[in-house]
Structure formats: structure tokens, C-alpha cells
């Protein structure tokens, strides 16, 4: 009788045991972070384009704009880490440091075209159209959208140096500026 009672209790205990025996547990530590959309332009090389003497020194075009070869500036390892970026080029015509209004037949402005390439399909270009007195010196152009994150050497080429009406250039030092902007395509002008 003693043995029968013991067996009965054991039999009741057995069905409950297997479910507990294999329990394991999992805890989770979620990790999140972010990378902010950013564009960085490489330092321009060269940082300064020195054209030297920009007028002819002799011949029938004396004191008129000389033929200036294309000037190339590299912006190495420029990048945007997001899809949908664009290059904008803004040019400011070369103007004489002498701000006096030029006499008829003279110009104190030199226009040119700046073209940025190697970012998206096509290029971004702007051609300044300053008047001979140096007014309205700026122009800008927007390229096509780069659909992927990209790192590349952007090349800016300066070409087509001209004076309004091919006039005689006023003596002096001339300076202009090219501004390259790399940013999201959604940003308005």
C-alpha cells in the first residue's frame, strides 16, 4: 500500500515538468544612430587663379583681352552622403579695382564662363554678363541632380574670357570670383 501511494504522486508531477525544463529567455538591447546628410567640398586646387596680364601688349588688339587658355581648378574628394545633390556655380565677372566709370570705348569688366563637371550627368555652368562699367557682374547656373551618394573630384574650368563689346580694357588690377556650392537639390535658389 505504501508503494502504491508513492507512485500515484509521482505520476501527477511528471506531466508538468517538461515545459519548465527547456525554458530559455532572450533580452534585447536595441541600438540606433544617425548620420546627418552633409556635403563637403574639397579645398580648391589652386585656390587662386592668377591670369597674369590679361590684355594684349602689342599688335592690333593692344589693350584688348588676350586669348586666355582654359583655367582648371580641382575640388578633390568632394562628397555628399545622400541621394539627390546638385552643384551650383556662381560667377562674378573680373572687374577693375579702379571703380571709376570707364570712358566710352573702354571696359573695366571681363566676363567668362565657369563650368563644373564630374558630379552629375552633364555639367553646371554660368557665364557672367557684366556690362562694360562692371555692373551686373554675377550669374549662376545649376547642374542636374546626382541621384546617389557620391564622392568625386569636381573640376571647375574657366573659359571664354571676353570683354563687353571687345572694348579696350581699363588699366588696373582685375579680380573676380567663382563660388561652387554643393548641396541638396531641394534647396531653392
Amino acid at each position, binding site marked *: 500500500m*505504501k508503494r502504491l501511494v508513492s507512485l500515484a504522486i509521482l505520476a501527477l508531477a511528471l506531466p508538468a515538468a517538461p515545459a519548465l525544463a527547456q525554458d530559455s529567455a*532572450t*533580452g534585447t*538591447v536595441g541600438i*540606433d544612430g*544617425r548620420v546627418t546628410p552633409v556635403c563637403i567640398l574639397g579645398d580648391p586646387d589652386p585656390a587662386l587663379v592668377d591670369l597674369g596680364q590679361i590684355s594684349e601688349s602689342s599688335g592690333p588688339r593692344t589693350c584688348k583681352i588676350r586669348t586666355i587658355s582654359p583655367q582648371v581648378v580641382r575640388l578633390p574628394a568632394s562628397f555628399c552622403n*545622400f541621394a539627390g545633390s546638385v552643384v551650383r556655380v556662381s560667377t562674378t565677372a573680373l572687374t577693375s579695382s579702379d571703380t571709376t566709370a570707364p570712358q566710352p570705348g573702354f571696359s573695366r569688366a571681363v566676363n567668362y564662363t565657369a563650368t563644373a563637371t564630374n558630379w552629375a550627368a552633364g555639367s553646371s555652368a554660368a557665364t557672367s554678363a557684366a556690362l562694360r562699367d562692371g555692373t551686373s557682374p554675377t550669374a549662376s547656373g545649376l547642374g542636374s541632380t546626382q541621384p546617389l551618394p557620391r564622392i568625386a573630384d569636381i573640376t571647375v574650368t574657366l573659359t571664354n574670357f571676353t570683354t563687353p563689346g571687345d572694348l579696350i580694357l581699363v588699366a588696373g588690377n582685375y579680380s573676380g570670383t567663382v563660388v561652387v556650392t554643393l548641396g541638396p537639390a531641394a534647396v531653392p535658389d
Partner: protein
Amino acid sequence: MRKSLIIAALPAVLAASPALAQSATGTVDITGSVAGRCMFTLPNKTISLGEISLASNGKLDVSKVNGRNETLTGWCNNTAASMTVTSTQLTTPTAATTGFDNRVDYTATATANSVSATDTSLTAGAGSGSTVGQFSGDILVTLSAASSPTNGLMVAGSYTGNVQVTLTPST
């Protein structure tokens, strides 16, 4: 002389009899069991790394990952209990073109009961298990050895990953 001997013997027999005749003992044995078991009492935490790229060059800022930690709590009730860690890399859905990375790998280390288990997200699956034994308390999860596949520029976006710590009562 012969009769008196028989009478003298009878009282001695009677005196020994009552214990055998009036009591009995039965026994009920009782058994039970406690299964090996592990549980998390605090099973979920989040480590928010914030910005993980360097402002100076756009690459992974490992200092934003390495050393970051969170604490889960739980217990196991048997000495054979083991602990494993499975780390899943941080990723963002945007594709990475040449020069960019959209993934951050790391090593996760879980420490409980002065025992550690680790796993790197560089390889799939869980790391080696460690016998954590019977304990109740903190499970400290720490990140280290952060890297991106090419040490490239990090693609913009939100990155997510996780560390799973599994406690198993028996191996």
C-alpha cells in the same frame, strides 16, 4: 512441581504481546521538482548613439559606439545555465556607392554574474556560449570595436541594429 512451572511461564509471554498487536505505520513519500529556468525581468533596452559620423570627414566616429552600454536584468536558477550573445550590425536602407558605407559592425559583450559572453556582428550567428550559472541581477551589455566595412564615408540616414542576449538554463 511440573504444573507450577507452566503457570510461571505464561505471564512472561503476555507481557511481550501488546506492542505487536495494536499499531502500524504507513508512509506517503512526496516528491517535486524545480526545472532549470532563466528569465529576463528587464528584457528590453535601447542605446541611442546619436550622430555617428565625424563632422570633419564624414567617416564613422567610433567613439560614438565604443564603450556604450545598457543593462538588462534577469536570472537563472541553475548552475549549468549558459549565456550567448548575438549582435546584429547597424544598417541604413540607402545603398552605399563606391567610397561609402551603410553598415557599422561592432562587438557586443554581455556580462552577468562576473561571466562574459561576446559576439561580433562581422560574422552571422551567436558567439560562443559561457556558463553563467545561478544568478539574479544585472546583465551589462557593452559595445566595442566599431568599424565600417571600408572606413568610407557614412551614408546619411537612420541606423538600427540590436544585441540579443540569450540565457539558457542547461547546455
